Each structure stands twice: as structure tokens, then as C-alpha cells.
């Protein structure tokens, strides 16, 4: 009886702790995000002051006409961007995450966390490999996959033909849930654009096109400081990218509109962050003069445009491309650069990556730590960008198929760990962070599905 009682009290204590912890998590999120947000805004405001450029201004009519004329080729003849710099880069954000601490740490109920040797020091719950195998069961060895079973050596009758046929059926029946289940095995190239739209419930109605045109008008009429940041980002990243440079002009058309889209503010309801606020000149601190800045509440960082770029391979009508990107952002991408305890949030993803590595590739993990090359420092940028710009396009699209299929970003840290596992032999021989970065610099030849399958289902753990 005593034993049971003490067990019970222990359980109650743990529950209370968990509840307290969750409240603390919420506080933690708000605090951490709050200070980060302040930093970003400060950076933005100081850029503003330094360059004597207002956060927003109305364009004179002549300038409006000019912009309208070159709406389809904004990539050429760009303004002088040399004085602008990105508000922050992924590595700045990583530093913030590394410094997150849960004040309840020493009473944490996961003992094993004390031996966590990675950079993330927040004890969130993440899946282990058995749980991941269950979660990603359709990626198993006995299930056909696009990205593996559609290679030239495999006769299409074995899997590909039937899979395509099913995909066409799903589209005809416009069954969104079925599409989501289906796409776990990958999408045929020709069906992907429609399948993604079906899964995200995007249909291009006249009102959607009208909404996009309205945003475009906003862009023409008003110039925002963030516009220059967007320009700069596109010029630094997508314009130099082997796969996406062709679509440079589309990126402006999407991102400039995106920053003016106040409907994006709605996602802050489930995002523990809050949109940055700015105040009308001279009215600092007076809430009635507060506006969200930029209007969509999202300040772009270095590499932001890479979220849009892969979609250009699927959609070439600007309003449809826009809709798809916006939906992908408010469902998935925002989690990659805001602090939360959500299992698809970047903190959990980082922790999952580190835990996978430390648990299943301990030798590699310890070696890299020893030489000052904490693995997360290398893989962070891959995950923040959902691997865009690092993988070949066809591979990236196969990966994003699975993000949609499982409605989760957890596949990103699993892939990151799989990449490390794949290059483990070379990594064991390096003796510096720079050398480790070099081994992992070029992912463009990787085939993601075999890597994932081997890591999850074919590695002896």
C-alpha cells in the first residue's frame, strides 16, 4: 500500500511538474521570442535611421508607373542595395536557440537529458527511431517509393505505373485526405502541382486572383523598407542558385506582395510569436498608433526567398504561385524561424537531430564535438531552409512531398542525421569545423529517399 501511495504521489508530482513546466514553456517561449523580436526590430529601426529611409512611404505617381512597367522583370536594373544588410541570418537565430534555458531544468523528469551533449538545452520531447519508424511507416522497405522505385533499373510495372494511376484517381475525385496519404510515397512529377494544391485546399477562385492583384496594387503604391531587404535577399541567394536563378523575377512578385498581406497575421494565433509592431512617427509607445510592420508581420531573413523558389518549378501563374507559397508558409515554414515547443518547431527539430545523432551515431557525434564541430552548427542552415538550395530540385520536391504527406517537418532532422550517417566515414577523419563543413558542403548529388530509408529502416541500432 505504501509503495502504491508513494508511486501515486510521484505520479501526481510529475503531472504537476508537467503542467507547471508547460506553463513555463509558454512563458519561456514568450520571453525568448520577446527579446529576439526586440533585437530584430531594433536592427530594422537602426538601419532605417542610418540610411534615412522611412519604414514605409507612398510612391510618387511617376515611380508607380515605372514599377508597373517593369513588374515582370524587377530583377534587372535594381536599386543600390549595397548599404542594406539582412536583418539576421540563420546562424544568428541559432545562437538565440542555443541560449534558451528552461529554469526548471534541474527538476526535469527526463534523466537522460542531463547527458545531452548537443547545443540545445531545452528538454522537449522528441521521437526516437522506433517512434519515427511508426510515424513514417510508409517510408519502409516494403513500400514502394518515388525517389527509389522509379529509377531506370526498376520496371515501371512493379510500382510506378500503378502509383501514377492512383494519383490520377485521387485528383479526379478531389479527395484531399486521400491525396495526403498518397503523397507519402512521393508524387509523380506531372501530378505534383495539383496534388499539393489539393492537399493544402488551394483552389484558384476569381476572388483569390483579385486579392493578389490588390496586393500587387499595394506594392505599386507604397514602398516598404522590407522591399529592399527582399531584393537583397533574392540577389544574394536565389539569383546565384544553379536551379532557381531562372525564376528570379517571380520571387519579387511573390515576396513583395507577401509582405503586404495582412491575412498572414492570422497565423500568429497559433504561432507563439507575435508580429513585430512599429509606431507612427512621434507616437512611440502609444498603442492606438501601433501598426504591424511589415503588414504581414514577417520580417524576412537571409535565405527567406528560398522558401518560394522551389515552388516556381510547379506554378507559373503568379497568383497561384503566391497562394501556394502563402499557405506553405503559414502551415509549415513559419515554424522554422520562430521559437515554440511544437514538435515541428525549429527547437524540437534541432533537438531531434542532435538526439538522433548522439544516440545512433555516438562515435561520430563525440568526434565532431571534440574537434569543435557541433553537428547542429552545420545542419541548422539546412533545416531552417527545409533544404531548399542544398538539394537538387527533383530531390527537394520529393522531400517536400513527405512534409505535406505527414503534415510535419520532422523529416528534416531525420534527413539531416541521415546525411551525417552517409558521410560518416569522411567525417570521422576531419579535424576541424571547416573541414567538416567542406565534407558536407555539397548535397546536390544526394538521393533523399534511399538515405531516409536506410537510416530509419535498415540501420542496425
Amino acid at each position, binding site marked *: 500500500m505504501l509503495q502504491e501511495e508513494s508511486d501515486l504521489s510521484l505520479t501526481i508530482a510529475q503531472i504537476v511538474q508537467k503542467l507547471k513546466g508547460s506553463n513555463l514553456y509558454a512563458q519561456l517561449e514568450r520571453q525568448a521570442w520577446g527579446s529576439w523580436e526586440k533585437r530584430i526590430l531594433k536592427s530594422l529601426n537602426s538601419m532605417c535611421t542610418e540610411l534615412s529611409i522611412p519604414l514605409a512611404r507612398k510612391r510618387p505617381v511617376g515611380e508607380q508607373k515605372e514599377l508597373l512597367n517593369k513588374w515582370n522583370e524587377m530583377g534587372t536594373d535594381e536599386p543600390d542595395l549595397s548599404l542594406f544588410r539582412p536583418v539576421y541570418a540563420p546562424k544568428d537565430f541559432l545562437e538565440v536557440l542555443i541560449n534558451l534555458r528552461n529554469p526548471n531544468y534541474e527538476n526535469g523528469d527526463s534523466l537522460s537529458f542531463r547527458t545531452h551533449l548537443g547545443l540545445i538545452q531545452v528538454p522537449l520531447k522528441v521521437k526516437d527511431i522506433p517512434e519515427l519508424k511508426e510515424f513514417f511507416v510508409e517510408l519502409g522497405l516494403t513500400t514502394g517509393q518515388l525517389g527509389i522505385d522509379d529509377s531506370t533499373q526498376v520496371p515501371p510495372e512493379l510500382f510506378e505505373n500503378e502509383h501514377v494511376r492512383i494519383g490520377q484517381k485521387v485528383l479526379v475525385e478531389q479527395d484531399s485526405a486521400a491525396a495526403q496519404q498518397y503523397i507519402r510515397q512521393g508524387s509523380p512529377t506531372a501530378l*505534383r502541382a495539383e496534388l499539393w494544391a489539393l492537399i493544402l485546399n488551394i483552389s484558384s477562385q476569381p476572388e483569390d486572383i483579385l486579392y493578389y492583384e490588390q496586393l500587387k496594387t499595394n506594392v505599386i503604391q507604397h514602398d516598404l523598407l522590407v522591399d529592399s531587404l527582399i531584393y537583397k535577399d533574392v540577389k544574394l541567394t536565389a539569383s546565384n542558385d544553379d536551379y532557381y536563378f531562372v525564376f528570379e523575377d517571380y520571387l519579387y512578385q511573390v515576396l513583395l506582395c507577401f509582405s503586404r498581406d495582412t491575412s498572414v497575421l492570422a497565423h500568429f494565433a497559433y504561432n507563439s510569436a507575435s508580429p513585430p509592431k512599429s509606431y507612427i512617427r512621434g507616437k512611440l509607445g502609444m498603442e492606438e498608433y501601433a501598426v504591424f510592420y511589415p503588414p504581414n508581420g514577417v520580417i524576412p531573413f537571409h535565405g527567406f526567398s528560398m522558401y518560394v523558389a522551389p515552388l516556381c*518549378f510547379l506554378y507559373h501563374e503568379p497568383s497561384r504561385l503566391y497562394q501556394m507559397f502563402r499557405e506553405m508558409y503559414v502551415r509549415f515554414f513559419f515554424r522554422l524561424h520562430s521559437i515554440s515547443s511544437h514538435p515541428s518547431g525549429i527547437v524540437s527539430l534541432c533537438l531531434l537531430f542532435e538526439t538522433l545523432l548522439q544516440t545512433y551515431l555516438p562515435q561520430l557525434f563525440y568526434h565532431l564535438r571534440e574537434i569543435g564541430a557541433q553537428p547542429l552548427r552545420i545542419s541548422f542552415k539546412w533545416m531552417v531552409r527545409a533544404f531548399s538550395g542544398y538539394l537538387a530540385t527533383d530531390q527537394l520536391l520529393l522531400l517536400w512531398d513527405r512534409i505535406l504527406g505527414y503534415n510535419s517537418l520532422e523529416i528534416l532532422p531525420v534527413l539531416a542525421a541521415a546525411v551525417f550517417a552517409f558521410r560518416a566515414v569522411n567525417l570521422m577523419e576531419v579535424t576541424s569545423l571547416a573541414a567538416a563543413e567542406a565534407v558536407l558542403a555539397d548535397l546536390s548529388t544526394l538521393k533523399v529517399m534511399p538515405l531516409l530509408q536506410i537510416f530509419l529502416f535498415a540501420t542496425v541500432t
Partner: protein
Amino acid sequence: MAGKVKWVTDIEKSVLINNFEKRGWIQVTENEDWNFYWMSVQTIRNVFSVETGYRLSDDQIVNHFPNHYELTRKDLMVKNIKRYRKELEKEGSPLAEKDENGKYLYLDFVPVTYMLPADYNLFVEEFRKSPSSTWIMKPCGKAQGKGIFLINKLSQIKKWSRDSKTSSFVSQSSKEAYVISLYINNPLLIGGRKFDLRLYVLVSTYRPLRCYMYKLGFCRFCTVKYTPSTSELDNMFVHLTNVAIQKHGEDYNHIHGGKWTVNNLLYLESTRGKEVTSKLFDEIHWIIVQSLKAVAPVMNNDKHCFECYGYDIIIDDRLKPWLIEVNASPSLTSSTANDRILKYNLINDTLNIAVPNGEIPDCKWNKSPPKEVLGNYEILYDEELAQGDGADRELRSRSGQSLGSKGGRSRDSGRTVLTTWK
């Protein structure tokens, strides 16, 4: 016979030399005993010219066919294709079938072209039929976009008129010869920009025809958005995709060099669907093979020779491919890091096929390398194999029937397809 291959080249390019050196081959001069000579087109002219009387021995191979210009000179290519089509028509071959407008159904892959000044009057007749069309003038013997310009008025090419008082005997020489082709003013645009395809094709023998296509071709984009507007006809940055021209543009980017690997054309399948994209690639393979068949009868099929051609293809907005020209000496200069890797691998795979086992060659070998050495090449057409299967397969597929499962394979990794009409 032991001993290392002795090589010579008059093209100082690292992608070549590194490949020779990694095989442990020995560099010699052309006056010494050599086994392998990677020559420029000027040199091949000398080697096989009547005056020099060069005799190649059995253990010597070179990288050009003696009269490659039948394919690689713009005017001769067109002449040979026209001749080939007429021959097929005479034979009553179904390949030469025409539609109700008199256009070849299967062999219309070269834009309407005339030689100047020889065909000047014929050209004028054609020009007057659609006076608002644009034509492109290209010098027969030049490369890299040199000397090319667009016209839309007869007055712009006055000096090529045969009756012109300004023409002298000098302009009749091949140096001044031009071809004028109907300009494809509705190219397929991606990101609003015009591009062309550069594909590499290796021919090891013309009779029987055996050719391979390199899987890793690339697209060359213009740095400026395309416009058919007549006010921009002079703007070469809009119209000419040659890297030699584009790299002088304001917006030229040295990182990607305006090049896309052919894999990225999965964009077409994503946005246009699999059927039309597969058909496009199938047609591209078709026109390459037909162009080779057209010149095969006139080609000096010297057994000491092989050749790696650079095919330039433009796709129009109806997804029809057009053969623009064939280069005997595709550039081995690398404009970007990826470029260098691609060209290095191209030469590597080419040498593996042309010089079996990297050993001293015997030009009498059957020129049938095992599958394992193909690398990134795939067999495009093997006449011996095709004849074994029966020639009528070719005709069946060409009359518009479905391509079958192999012909319709997905394009998402840019793999070339062994088409059903082999």
C-alpha cells in the same frame, strides 16, 4: 601490346589534359609516333588534305571525321538534310510523308533556310510570302555567335543579292557565304527568357551508324527577358544564347553562368504534363539521329575517327524542337565550376568509349564498347542492333502510335530515353 598511349593535342584545355594524365598516357609531339590526337578542326583539315598525304596507322585515332563539315557547316548541314528528305520521298518512304500544306510530318526539324548569295532569289520569293517575318543571318564558317544578325527588311541584306552591283567575285568565296533561316520568334520561354539546349552526341562510326547521347546536357539562358519586338532585333543579349555573347551582358552571373542542367527541365513536366514532355524529348532524339543519317552516306567513315558533337536545339512555345546547328568542336572552356566538372566527365566518358580500356588502340576493333564503360552516355542509335530488330518498328512508331511504356518514362531526373523506334 603493352605500353602507354601516346597523346598529342593542339587544344590547351585542362579538362582534356587532366583526363590524359589521369590515365597515365604519355604526351608527345605530333612529329613523333602518337596513338591519340585530339585536334582542332584546322588541324584535321591538314591531316586529311590531299596535299599532305597523311596516312594514319592502325594504332592511331583522331577525334574528328575528315569531312565532318558536311554536318557541322551550317550550309552543308541544311543541304544534306534537304537531299536526304528528297531521297526518302523518291523511295516512297513513309518517313517523308507530308501534310496538306506540303510540310514534312516527321522531317521538318530545320527552320526554312537558304544559302546566300546562291539562293538569293529563292529567298526573296519566300520572304515576300510573309513580309513581317524575321530572319536570322549566320556566316557559314564562324562560331560563338560571331557575325550573326537579325533582319526583317530585304534592304538589310542587299549586299548578298546576286545581281547587286556591290557584289564581286570575292563575296562568292566560302568566307562570305551566309545562311539565312526563318527566325524562331516564338521560343519556349522559362522565367520569361529564351534558352537553347546544348546536347553532346558521340559518333563512333557512321556506317553502321552508332551514336551515343550524353545524359547531362544543359540549357543556356539569355540574361535579358525575351521580346519579339522589332525595336530589340539588334539586342543580341535577347536573342543569342551563346555564352561567348551573354557573358558580356550586364546581368551575366559568373556563379551559374546562365546555365541550367537538362534535369531541370522537369519544370516542363511539372507544368505541362508528362505526355507532351516525353514527346518533346523523343523528338529531340529523333532529330539528332535523322541528322546523322542524313550525312552518313557522304561522310568519310574513316575507321581512325570518332567525333563528339555539340548539338544546339531550340524549343518553340508549341514544344517543338528545332535543330539549329551542330558543332564539331564544342567548347571545352569552363564558365563555372559545375561546367568544368561536366566537361571533365564528358571527356572522360568519351575517351572510355573511343579508346577501349585506355590501351593503345587498334582502329580495326568493332567499336562496340561494353555497357559498363558508357558512363553518362546512353546509346542513342545503333544501326546494327536496329537492323537486327527489323526496320519496320521504326515506321510503326513514327506513324503516331503511342510510344509505349519505355518511351513514356518520366523525365524527372533528365534521363534520356531509349525510344521505341530503334
